[in-house]
C-alpha cells in the first residue's frame, strides 16, 4: 500500500452534530479522517456510541436532513459526497457504494418477496427487466450461497433464517459490483457459527470482485480476521489507527489495549476473570479540553485532562494519547491474534 495508489474513499475531518431545539447539540462524530484504497478492507472499531455507524451513514448520505449537521469532506472519485445533489447521490448508492446493515431481520421488507427486492436493485441500476433480471437475481443469491435460489426468489423474508437473510442482503448490496461496501456490524445479530460463515462469505466476495470494504464492528475478533487497517474510535474520535498486524501486536492507546484485553481467551486458566474496561461509554469528558477516555483509563496522568490530545502520526500508526502504553505493555491477547472464531488466514498478505 503505497501512497501512490489512488484513494477510493477519502474522509477528511468528518463531523456529525445532532441539533435539537432547546437541547445541547450532540457531536456524535468529531473530526474523523480515514481513507480507503481500492480493494482494501478497513475496520472501524469501537463500543456502542463511539460514532461508527453515524460515520457510515454520513458517508452514505443517509442521515436525516433535519436536526443533523455534517461537516468535513467525503471524497469518492472526484466528488465530495457531502455536497452532491440528492439524485446523483442516489445513483451512486447501490451502484458504487453499498451498505449492509446490522439487523437482517428488519432490513428486508417483510411483505415483499426476496426476488422482488433483489430485482429492484437490478432494475434501478443495471437497467435489467423481466426474465433477465430474475435470472440475474437467482444468480446473485446462488453466489452468496443460498441453496435453490430460483425457488427462494418467491419466498418472503420471514421464510428465511437470519443467516440467509443477511446473505440475501449482501447479494443485494453486491448486485452492481460496487467499488465500496460498508458493512455496519454485519454479524452482530447472528449467532456465532453463522457469524463465521457470513464473514467468510464477505471476505470471499470482496476479494473476488475487488470491492473495498469498510467493516464496522465492536468485535476485535472480526477485525482480526478481515481488516488490513484498523481505526479505533472512542466517543466520536479516532484514537488509534494502524495496520491490523501492528495494532494487534502492539496496541498503544490504553483503550485499544483495553479492548484487546477484554476479549475472552480460550486458553486462559479456568476461573480467570475477564478484564473489562471499567465504566461505561457514557463516562466521557468533552474532547475539547480533555481525553474523553480519561475517566475510564487506568493509564491516566495529570496531562490527560486540561487539554485536548492531538492525533500524532508516527510511521504507519496514528495515536491520540498523551501517555500511551509502552511497547509490549498490553500483553498481546492470543484470543484475538489470531482469533479462533473467525477462521483467519494469519500469514497471508504481504503488507
Amino acid at each position: 500500500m503505497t501512497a501512490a495508489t489512488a484513494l477510493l474513499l477519502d474522509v477528511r475531518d468528518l463531523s456529525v452534530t445532532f441539533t435539537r431545539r432547546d437541547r445541547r447539540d450532540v457531536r456524535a462524530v468529531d473530526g474523523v479522517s480515514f481513507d480507503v484504497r481500492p480493494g482494501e478492507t478497513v475496520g472501524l472499531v469501537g463500543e456502542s456510541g463511539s460514532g461508527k455507524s453515524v460515520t457510515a451513514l454520513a458517508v452514505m448520505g443517509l442521515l436525516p436532513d433535519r436536526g443533523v449537521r455534517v461537516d468535513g469532506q467525503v471524497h469518492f472519485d472526484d466528488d465530495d459526497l457531502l455536497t452532491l445533489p440528492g439524485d446523483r447521490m442516489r445513483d451512486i448508492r447501490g451502484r458504487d457504494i453499498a451498505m449492509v446493515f446490522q439487523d437482517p431481520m428488519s432490513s428486508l421488507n417483510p411483505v415483499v418477496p426476496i426476488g422482488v427486492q433483489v430485482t429492484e436493485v437490478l432494475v434501478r441500476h443495471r437497467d435489467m427487466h423481466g426474465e433477465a433480471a430474475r435470472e440475474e437475481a437467482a444468480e446473485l443469491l446462488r453466489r452468496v450461497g443460498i441453496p435453490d435460489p430460483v425457488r427462494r426468489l418467491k419466498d418472503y423474508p420471514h421464510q428465511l433464517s437470519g443467516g440467509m437473510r443477511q446473505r440475501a442482503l449482501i447479494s443485494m448490496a453486491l448486485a452492481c459490483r460496487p467499488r465500496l461496501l460498508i458493512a455496519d456490524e454485519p454479524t452482530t445479530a447472528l449467532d456465532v457459527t453463522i457469524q463465521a460463515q457470513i464473514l467468510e462469505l464477505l471476505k470471499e466476495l470482496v476479494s473476488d470482485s475487488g470491492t473495498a470494504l469498510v467493516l464496522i464492528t465492536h468485535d476485535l475478533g472480526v477485525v482480526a480476521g478481515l481488516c488490513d487497517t484498523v481505526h479505533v474510535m472512542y466517543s466520536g474520535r479516532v484514537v488509534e489507527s494502524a495496520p491490523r498486524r501492528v495494532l494487534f501486536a502492539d496496541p498503544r492507546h490504553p483503550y485499544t489495549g483495553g479492548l484487546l484485553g477484554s476479549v475472552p481467551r480460550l486458553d486462559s486458566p479456568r476461573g480467570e476473570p475477564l478484564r473489562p474496561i471499567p465504566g461505561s461509554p457514557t463516562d466521557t469528558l468533552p474532547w475539547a479540553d480533555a481525553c474523553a477516555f480519561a475517566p475510564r483509563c487506568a493509564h491516566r496522568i495529570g496531562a490527560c485532562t486540561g487539554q485536548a490530545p492531538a492525533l500524532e502520526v508516527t510511521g504507519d500508526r496514528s495515536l491520540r494519547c498523551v501517555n500511551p502504553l509502552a511497547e509490549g505493555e498490553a500483553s498481546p491477547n492470543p484470543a484475538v491474534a489470531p482469533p479462533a472464531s473467525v477462521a483467519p488466514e494469519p500469514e497471508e498478505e504481504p503488507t
Partner: protein
Amino acid sequence: MSLAEIEAETESKRVGEETGGSLGREAWKLLRRDPVAIIGFALIAFFVLVALFAPLIAPYAPDAQPGAGTITPTNIPGPSAEHWFGLDELGRDEFSRVVYGARQSLLVGVVSLILGMSLGLLMGFLAGAFGGKVDTVVMRLVDVMLAIPGLLLAIAIAAMLGPSLLSVMIAIAAVNVPIFARLLRGQMLAQREADYVLAAQSLGVRRRSIMLGHVLPNSVSPVIVQGTLTLATAIIEAAALSFLGLGSADPGVPEWGRMLASTQRYLASAPHLAFFPGMAIVIAALGFTLLGERLREALDPKYRR
C-alpha cells in the same frame, strides 16, 4: 364475498401485484381456524346472499300490500305461517321488506366505504409520503373533519344534499375520509422509519419506489381491518340517517332505519315491527365487526406465535 371485495379494493391501490400476498395468505390460514371469524364470515355471507337474491327469497314485492284493508292501528298481525315476520302498519309483508332492506344496507355500506376510503387513502398517502407542508395542510383538514362528531357531520351533509340514497352515501363517506386518511398517514410515518426503508435507500432506490413499493404495502393491513369495521358502522349510520328521515325520498323503498322509525307509534301493539329490522341491523353489523376484529389480530404480527 364482501371480504374479497374489500381486499380487491385495497389491492388495486397497491403497487406491485405480489405484495402482501403471503401476509394475506397467512392471515387467511389463521382466520380459517378461528371460530369467531367463521361466525362473522357466515353472518356476512348470509347478509350478502340475502341482499343479492332478495327477489328470489322474498315472497312479496317490498311495496305490495297483501294485508291491505285488514290492518288497523290496534290490529297488526304478528308472525304467522303465511307472513313469517307478520305484516306492517300498511299491510305489507314484513319479511319481504326486511329482505329487500338488506340490499339498501349493503349498497350504502359498500359504496360509501369505497368513496370514503379512496379519498381518505389518497389524502393519507399524500400526507405520509410527502410529509412537511403537505402533511400539515392535509392533517389540519382532517382535524377539522374529525372535530365534528361523525353522525352529526353525516346528518348535516345528508340534510344539505336532500333526502336521497346518494346523499346518505356521500354523508357516510365523508365521515370515513378523515379516519382512513389519519390511519394510513400514521402507518406510513411509522414505516418510513423502518430499517428496510434505510436499506432500500442505501441501494439508491428512488423515493417514489420506496413509498409505493415498500412503505405503502406495509401500511395497508390496518386499512383492510378498518375497512371491514367501517362497513359495520356504515350500515348502522345508514340506518340512523334513514331513521331520521334522511334516507331515500321514496317511502316505498324498504330501509331498515326507516322501518324502525315508522314503527315507533305501534311499538305497544306490534313490537315485531321493531324487532325484525333491528335484528337485521345487528346481524349485518355484527358480522363485519367480528370478522374485522379477528382480521386485525390475524394481520397483526404481535398476536402471532
